[in-house]
């Protein structure tokens, strides 16, 4: 069993118009920049995939990564908790122009909805957002005298993630706080594609240190000198594909 993919182009090949794509990372920490740029490049070359729904905690920063996707016009809708950043131009411009939709989800609810999708839990109750504008239209219930909002699972067609070590079977580790949403998204997407900073043989990762077990991963591609979104943003880099 070998889930390694030949290159970045192959890695993003299965993403089609209108799909829901989860992208790992919290700000620049954990953002799979090379996978995202490969997808932007494909769009610039072929006009596809377009009208994507993207799930990420944020909505891009500067002119690289997710911001470059939005700039390119590939994203029809963002599902996120915090569409602001040091340089949120890409999203802000499109949002205020009515060219991109936004589903705003509290961060913990976003995480739990993704986790629920991976765990086969179609709905759950959370106290978060009860009595607020973000709970409007959602079922509520009382348990033990406290009020809760019913939230639904959030699934995706594809997840694009960044990991530190990855073996050929798909077992993953992450680097520091770059873990964040990625283990959840790996389980919530029908197809999970991961850029790993170092590709290793099965057995090289201690089974006790695996964070994402191979069952959640469909493809791994090695990107040895991965770029970091925050560093690129601070350098003023723009990716236009």
């Amino acid at each position, binding site marked *: *069993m070998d889930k390694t993919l030949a290159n970045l182009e192959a890695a993003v090949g299965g993403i089609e118009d209108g799909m829901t794509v989860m992208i790992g990372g919290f700000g620049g920490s954990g953002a799979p920049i090379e996978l995202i740029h490969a997808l932007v490049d494909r769009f610039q070359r072929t006009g596809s995939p377009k009208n994507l729904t993207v799930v990420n905690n944020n909505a891009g920063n500067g002119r690289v990564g997710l911001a470059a996707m939005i700039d390119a016009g590939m994203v029809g809708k963002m599902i996120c908790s915090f569409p602001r950043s040091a340089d949120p131009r890409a999203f802000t411009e499109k949002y205020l122009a009515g060219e991109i939709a936004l589903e705003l989800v509290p961060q913990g609810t976003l995480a739990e909805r993704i*986790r629920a*999708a*991976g*765990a*086969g*839990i179609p709905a759950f109750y959370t106290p978060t957002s009860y009595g607020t504008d973000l709970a409007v239209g959602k079922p509520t219930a009382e348990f033990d005298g406290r009020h809760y909002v019913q939230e639904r699972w959030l699934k995706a067609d594809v997840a694009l993630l960044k990991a530190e070590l990855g*073996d*050929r*079977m798909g*077992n993953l580790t992450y680097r520091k706080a770059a873990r964040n949403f990625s283990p959840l998204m790996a*389980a919530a997407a029908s197809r999970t594609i991961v850029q790993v900073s170092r590709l290793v*043989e*099965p*057995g090289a990762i201690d*089974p*006790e240190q*695996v964070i994402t*077990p*191979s*069952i*959640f991963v469909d493809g791994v591609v090695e990107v040895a000198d991965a770029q970091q979104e925050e560093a690129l943003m601070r350098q003023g880099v723009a990716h236009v594909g």
Partner: protein
Amino acid sequence: MSAKLSNAQIAWRAAQDIEDGTYVNLGIGFPEMVAKFQPEGRQAIFHTENGVLNFGEAPAAGEEDWDLINAGKKAITLRPGAAFFHHADSFAMVRGGHLDVAILGAYEVAENGDLANWSTGPKGVPAVGGAMDLVHGAKRVAVITDHVTKDGKPKLVQRCTLPLTGVGCVTRVYTSLAVVDIEGGRFVLREKLPSLSIDELQAVTGAELVLPPQIGDLVAPEL
């Protein structure tokens, strides 16, 4: 009608349908035997409820590590590329539809896909384990079983009489006499022992067998 497959042969037959690279959970007891018959050149990855993926065969006697066991509490070993995880993650794999195949035992399987395999009634101490989760998790839920009970009664029935494990969950049954798919609420006969007539098979089956144009021969090696 005397010829029938041995348990090992039933397990062998079920193993032939497990593709390379698939993630598989084998129920405790008889289904565990399926792992022994993985066809050459195919690598299945075995999952156990208690938090291990990609385990291998039992260690030699005396080499057991009792912190490294399967759901049946038997000592196991690891293969390269194994992972440990906690019980919620383990059942996320199950309930979340990440397993490709679950192979389970049965007391009864009904033509509507209902399965009864956890309780023989109100007597004694009831125990369910992970069976009710597994039947709603794997992409394909198959059963391996003798075709009839020890008393000769059909285990493939119209409706289960024993307490259900799951509703409409089974899609294929490997028995000592036949391979039967469950499609549209009917038993569809796919393979049968060559020595057995369809009438003989129907006589020990508790619901009508739908007969497609092609019915294969169920043949297994001596094991």
